[in-house]
């Protein structure tokens, strides 16, 4: 309002200040400062009308209110766990939220320590020696793993093997990363929702640089043959990259123990909740690959007075120093989401994490069993252990059922013609009874 009615409300200049500064610089007007050839000057308008803060809030919230208010039973790589209020309260402090990358560690010890703690938690969860302090998401993490594989392998190779059941978006991102490294992506078959290790053994050869598997899979199946997969990869000097997430890792066998060389996954399952797919890529790997790791690493050191201090380290791997020979082009990452995940994990503590994970097994099992009782539904389709989610076979077309459920107020995945997928966490479990009832209405 007032003098801030026009122009940017976030430019503090009073008219008198502006005049004094123009004088000091020796120009008459702001336009004179722009050294832009006439030919490319823009003299038109964008036609964006400035609105005050209240109006923008109202407008944006009204717009978002156009989203149908459905109870979501959706997963497949993006999960909704309850984020404790403390996470928002602390992460929103301006000293964290509005800070820059820690190029001046002496005034960034707070954020650096949180990232160091995040890395340490991931080291515990994965059993691997190194975790970086975030990539964009699980998909880009998978892409980075593939390029890492080409760098650490002694001989070149041309293939990456991925499971038949894989989120298309994740495979798509991998393909783009792989392409630049002259790799092609190929699928190996699965059997009843898990890796068909016999088929994998046939598919793999020395031209494979990396084998990727997930546990839980995109369908929520807990993989039982990880060590065997790791062994197969090892036999062919291929990296074994495992996809998982921090909640699952709190109870599942440590990836390091099944031969995983890299763990990637969606670490925003802690810290973020449902965010239209926004995530945060976890990336952990063996210490051998230290100098090939993509992304930022925080290390402990000392300051001049001998006290422990933290700093970004091994930056010579990064693009701003190594340019086209960098381990990755990543610069801005998801540091603040990593901070949120770390605070969330700390708030849960080991008991809370394990309890959350255990519920992801028990609750999912219970809901699947109840659906199986409904005529026209078989659940779970895969005779496996599940985590958070499972697929159910339908007699009616799955997409028709999904549409009917949407009309009734519930969102589920229709993954194939006759397959629904359902994800249950603590944030939608209160509506699970209603969902089961709604499905029984529309199953036939």
């Amino acid at each position: 309002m007032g003098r801030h009615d026009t122009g940017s409300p976030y430019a503090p200049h009073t008219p008198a200040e502006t005049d004094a500064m123009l004088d000091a610089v020796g120009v008459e007007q702001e336009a004179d400062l722009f050294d832009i050839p006439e030919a490319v000057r823009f003299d038109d308008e964008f036609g964006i009308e400035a609105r005050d803060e209240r109006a923008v809030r109202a407008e944006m919230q009204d717009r978002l209110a156009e989203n149908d208010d459905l109870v979501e039973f959706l997963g497949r790589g993006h999960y909704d766990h309850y984020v404790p209020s403390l996470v928002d309260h602390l992460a929103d402090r301006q000293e964290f939220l509005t800070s820059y990358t820690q190029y001046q560690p002496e005034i960034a010890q707070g954020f650096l320590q949180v990232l160091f703690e995040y890395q340490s938690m991931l080291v515990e969860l994965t059993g691997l020696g190194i975790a970086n302090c975030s990539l964009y998401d699980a998909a880009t993490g998978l892409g980075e793993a593939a390029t890492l594989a080409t760098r650490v392998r002694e001989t070149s190779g041309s293939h990456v093997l991925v499971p038949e059941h894989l989120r298309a978006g994740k495979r798509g991102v991998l393909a783009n990363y792989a392409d630049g490294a002259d790799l092609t992506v190929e699928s190996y078959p699965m059997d009843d929702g898990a890796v068909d290790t016999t088929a994998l053994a046939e598919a793999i050869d020395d031209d494979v640089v990396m084998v990727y598997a997930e546990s839980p899979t995109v369908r929520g199946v807990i993989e039982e043959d990880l060590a065997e997969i790791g062994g197969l990869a090892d036999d062919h000097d291929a990296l074994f990259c495992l996809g998982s997430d921090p909640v699952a890792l709190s109870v599942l066998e440590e990836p390091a123990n099944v031969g995983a060389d890299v763990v990637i996954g969606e670490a925003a399952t802690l810290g973020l909740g449902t965010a239209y797919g926004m995530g945060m890529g976890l990336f952990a790997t063996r210490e051998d690959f230290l100098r090939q790791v993509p992304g930022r690493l925080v290390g402990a050191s000392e300051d001049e007075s001998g006290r422990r201090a933290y700093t970004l380290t091994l930056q010579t791997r990064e693009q701003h120093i190594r340019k086209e020979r960098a381990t990755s082009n990543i610069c801005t990452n998801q540091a603040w989401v990593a901070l949120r995940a770390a605070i969330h994990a700390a708030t849960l503590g080991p008991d809370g994490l394990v309890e959350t994970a255990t519920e992801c097994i028990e609750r999912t099992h219970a809901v699947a069993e109840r659906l199986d009782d409904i005529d026209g539904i078989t659940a779970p389709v895969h005779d496996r252990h599940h985590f958070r989610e499972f697929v159910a076979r339908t007699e009616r077309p799955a997409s028709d059922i999904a549409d009917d459920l949407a009309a009734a107020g519930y969102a589920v995945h229709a993954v194939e013609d006759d397959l629904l997928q359902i994800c249950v966490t603590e944030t939608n479990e209160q509506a699970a009874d209603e969902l089961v009832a709604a499905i029984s209405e529309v199953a036939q």
Partner: protein
Amino acid sequence: RYVPLLSEKNNREVDIETPLPDDLTRDSLELPDLSEPELARHYSRLSQMNYGIESGPFPLGSCTMKYNPSFTEDIAAAPAGAVHPDRDGETVQGTLDLYAQLQEYLADIGGMDAVTLQPPAGAAGEFTGVLVAQAYHEHNGDERSEIVIPDSAHGTNFASAAMAGFDVVELPSGEDGRVDLDALAAALSDETALLMLTNPNTLGLFERDIVEVAEMVHDVGGLLYYDGANLNALLGRARPGDMGFDIMHYNVHKTFATPHGGGGPGAGPVGVSEDLEQFLPTPQVRATDEGYERYEPENSVGKVHGFHGNWLVLAKTAAYIARLGDEGLVDASAKAVLNANYLAEQLDYEVPFGPFHHEFVASADDQDAADVAKRMLDYGVHPPTTKWPEIVDEALMTEPTEGENKRTLDQLATAFNAVAGEDDATLESAPERTAARRIDQVSAARDPQLSWQALDEE
């Protein structure tokens, strides 16, 4: 001012018992186990050991650390926006509307014809742009192997080009700090897929010959890529699309004031000219008679993010642009450029080249620029970016942004000038007044300790 690690406060190992067979589960999990009051103090204390944009000026060159309006946080936190990425488009019309609007805002601002919001950061935007250029050439049956990049460009440009399998041809800057047309002519060939350019460049200089540059690149069949890191200098004054750029990315966490989050998340939307829309990542969002829908562009490069990009950041971007409108955007650039020029005018350090726009690169000359930065910490301000770009000796790359007032700029100048008059010994022992003194980065890199487990092993 030492805060023990969480694990030093209280770690606890719990046994794992689940309904799963034992061989599928770990035996135990050891993590910090603290109560909420302890955690609140821990992180509150750590936050106080960190410098944010509300702590003081943050004149990091090429980083555009401007004030982040808090109301955009409220919009991003709106529960109605917290939807799953796999929701049917028909059931998330509000979100798609916001995507469509932001695509349009950004297209208008950049002079582009279509925009993807999927890239989750500026470098991801570069990679996306390079993929689009690659797809364009391949679509024309014209595979090309080289990308030309000036030596003053951001390191990410080189890395992004390499990631997509291109060879990088580095273009030496001219004597005036800008693109040298002769050097460019020498660098271009029928292998040139793309020229990646920052404009104003990292010295804050507008590439005066941009029309000629564009012609030359197009003449050899190449495309032009605009690195949006410095777009804050030009809002409403000039548009990359009008200069002949075919592809560009926007750093919304710079130009459009979304908070940098200590390293991210950002977002790096990519704009393209009409011919290139067919290559954009999938899905795009468009308006139809029945509302908004997602669609896959005809010859899409596919995916650059697992889902739809950094939604929370994009929501803040849209809110910021709506708040400022035309006049606010123009004013933001005007004040950013005025601030840079005013500040440069006050400095005792030499500022080569010019005229510059939103940033300038001073030279610490016979001082070590990194030491200068450390010493500036003692004056309570955040220092500039140092030692880069390399074409200025001991570079102090300084971008005050429009968010600083005259008084703060004067304080910054005082800090710069005080340090300019100090001797090497003083600089080398700096900082003295910060929570942590100078940190040993060399031994941190020589013997990396990247987790509390590593510390325990010592």
